[in-house]
């Protein structure tokens, strides 16, 4: 890298092993990298403290500008006017872009952002660039995130007067394991070591567990179990969790999430305020970017005001003859974003169903994230949960980072004389993990919402007579067909003894350890014969271009190396 500000300390692929064991002496800090805002917090010995930047901000805009050759991020940067962020010089929304390929609808939605997101629609990573001296200068979401993380790290080191290495980062529930490796890569580039990656609502759940433990002071689990639903919606993602809490143990029952958030609401409203503007921004001319920036700021402002007012007047001159003079009511706003709200509702419903917690056993409903201020969102969640009231003892914008800081202290082995850190989170896998079998079907081996650490195995068999090899394609997701899911990696089993189809038994075992590292074991099970060694593969193995891999494998092997599931003998 050219930038002197950060160095690549280690490759993420080699850092996982030490995750759970290294550096217990120093305390890990909690970082919440939001799509739009981010924050950093640390356990100060008696409580969680949010760190402020030099401008006294606890919540900092997540963006990096490339204005003067030297990139600078929203932690230290002083922006003269908000529109400057939207003038093409700044890259933001990196959490929506990281680890996604250019066929992803989320990437396509990002093409309306003021910086350059170019897609070729072939399943490779998109081209992302910032406007520097009238040229589009390329970068990557990982690089942008790393620059930002370095600024956060420097800020924390100055204030805490010690070097920072270990972090607990919050992540969206819907992130695939491939996306997690990109986050790890960005952290490695910034010289940070990830102690834990915590799905955002589980960080909130931990904070809730601590609050309950402090207020109740009751015997562990003896009748004081509290179930809470946590709904977290920021600019980029919507996450839901159901947790059962007692005695400082937060047992996650279920998770659900999707890449919908305030950004979608914003884009829907921009489209509504300036219809037929689809093609206008795709050429990324300077004037158009400016126009878009003004529209963005005006729309954002209108949405914020609609949280407290029933109607707002939008009056903005965008230049180039584009003027908006319009009164927008809350009903219109809710109609325009109907799909977003419906998706929120379905996520809450799904999470409740998966958790198997009855509505009457739900003690608290907790709403956090920037979108939790939107009345419609509150109504939707309260309606599904049949609640009149929401939990009030939590700051919606700071809860996730506080939870991450608590986990940072706990995972670093710090204890507290008053028992404030006697906490434990029992996590679950947000997405199912399995392999391709039975034709093009996705056969989950570890279903979603399985408690981790976990190990599960399933038996498969050959589809052809004398088939001596089998291809194991590992996917992650919820679709019944593999193409709806995310490819994590692939490998081949060889040395299957020649036998009629359906006879050889191939055992595929998946293991997720406490550091959330996934390993796949596979091999032939043939009693009494000389068997080849088992395969052990750490996932994900793929790096890029998922679509291409599958196409190439299909072209080369067809169905000759396929497997089918063995029906369970009961």
């Amino acid at each position, binding site marked *: 890298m050219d930038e002197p500000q950060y160095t690549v300390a280690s490759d993420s692929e080699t850092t996982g092993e030490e995750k*759970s*064991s290294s550096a*217990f002496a120093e305390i890990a800090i909690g970082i919440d990298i939001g799509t739009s805002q981010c924050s950093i917090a640390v356990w100060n010995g008696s409580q969680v403290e949010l760190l402020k930047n030099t401008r006294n901000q606890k919540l900092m805009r997540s963006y990096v500008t490339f204005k003067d050759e030297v990139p600078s991020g929203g932690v230290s940067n002083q922006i003269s006017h908000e529109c400057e962020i939207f003038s093409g010089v700044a890259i933001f929304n990196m959490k929506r872009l990281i680890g996604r390929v250019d066929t992803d609808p989320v990437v396509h939605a990002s093409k309306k952002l003021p910086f350059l997101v170019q897609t070729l629609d072939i399943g490779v990573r998109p081209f992302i660039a910032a406007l520097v001296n009238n040229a589009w200068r390329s970068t990557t979401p990982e690089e942008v995130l790393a620059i930002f993380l370095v600024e956060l790290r420097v800020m924390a080191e100055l204030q805490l007067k010690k070097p920072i290495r270990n972090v607990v980062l919050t992540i969206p529930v819907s992130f695939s394991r491939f996306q997690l490796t990109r986050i790890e890569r960005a952290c490695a580039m910034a010289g940070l070591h990830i102690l834990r990656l915590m799905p955002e609502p589980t960080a909130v759940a931990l904070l809730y567990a601590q609050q309950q*433990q402090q207020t109740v*002071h*009751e*015997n*562990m*689990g*003896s*009748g004081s*179990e509290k179930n809470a639903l946590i709904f977290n919606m920021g600019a980029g993602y919507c996450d839901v969790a159901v947790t059962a809490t*007692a*005695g*400082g*143990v937060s*047992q996650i029952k279920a998770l659900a999430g999707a890449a919908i958030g305030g950004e979608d609401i914003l884009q829907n409203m921009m489209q509504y305020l300036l219809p037929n503007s689809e093609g206008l921004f795709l050429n990324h001319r300077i004037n158009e970017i400016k126009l878009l920036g003004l529209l963005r700021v005006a729309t954002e402002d209108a949405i914020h005001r609609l949280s407290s007012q029933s109607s707002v007047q939008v009056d903005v001159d965008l230049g180039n003859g584009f003027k908006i003079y319009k009164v927008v009511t809350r009903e219109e706003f809710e109609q325009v974003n109907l799909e977003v709200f419906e998706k929120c509702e379905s996520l809450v419903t799904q999470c409740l169903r998966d958790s198997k917690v009855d509505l009457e056993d739900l003690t608290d409903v907790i709403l956090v994230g920037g979108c939790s201020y939107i009345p419609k969102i509150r109504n939707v969640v309260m309606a599904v949960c049949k609640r009149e009231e929401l939990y009030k003892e939590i700051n919606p914008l700071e809860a996730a980072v506080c939870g991450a800081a608590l986990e940072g202290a*706990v*995972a670093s*082995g710090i*204890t507290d*004389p*008053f*028992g404030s850190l*006697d906490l*434990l*989170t*029992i996590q679950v896998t947000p997405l199912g993990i399995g392999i391709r079998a039975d034709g093009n079907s996705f056969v989950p081996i570890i279903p979603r919402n399985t*408690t981790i*650490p*976990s*190990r599960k*195995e399933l*038996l498969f068999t050959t589809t052809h007579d004398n088939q001596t090899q089998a291809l194991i394609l590992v996917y992650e997701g919820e679709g019944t067909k593999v193409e709806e899911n995310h490819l994590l990696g692939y490998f081949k089993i060889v040395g299957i003894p020649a036998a009629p189809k359906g006879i050889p038994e191939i*055992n595929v*075992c998946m*293991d997720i*350890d*406490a550091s959330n590292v996934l*390993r796949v*074991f596979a*091999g032939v*099970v*043939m*009693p*009494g014969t000389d*068997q080849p*060694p*088992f395969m*052990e593969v750490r996932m994900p193995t793929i790096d890029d271009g998922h679509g291409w891999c599958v196409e190439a494998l299909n072209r080369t092997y067809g169905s000759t190396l396929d497997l089918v599931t*063995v029906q*369970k*003998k*009961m």
Partner: protein
Amino acid sequence: MAVTSSLASFSSSTSPFTGSNFCTNQPHTSPSRVSFRPFRVSAACASTAERPTSYTATLTSESSLYEVLGIQMGATCKEIKTAYRGLARILHPDVAGNGQREGTAYEFIRVHEAYETLSDPEKRADYDRSLYRRGRQMGSPFSMSAATATTMAAGYAAAGFSGRTRQRWETDQCW
């Protein structure tokens, strides 16, 4: 018996898992650890090793799910949850110090599987019925030879689990 003593530590009202007791407890290196981890007490008594023998080592692969959780067969749902949480506080790999110890992840998995079966009324009823048929071996879909089991155990051991812990406990889950 370790099982009996662990049962006692949970059913008694003087369980160390009270808020006030937590407050006085120090991290894993301090001597007060013994009171923080009641299960180890029984295990550690029998062992002079610096690191106490892990809790499930006292159980065999034939132990019932009730024994795994250290509860009686007639335990209420609340007791099951309490026992599970108590064991999680000891065995979960995130508990300070467990990260370096091999096998706690496996032990936690085993406890969790027991909890999962016993906390679901339907699964628990199925399991209780199967307990009565315990005399004969359960029809296992994983009818591997000893050699296979060893191979797999060796493979898994590389993943951070000890070979010893490769047991047939999965078959108890009827999955």
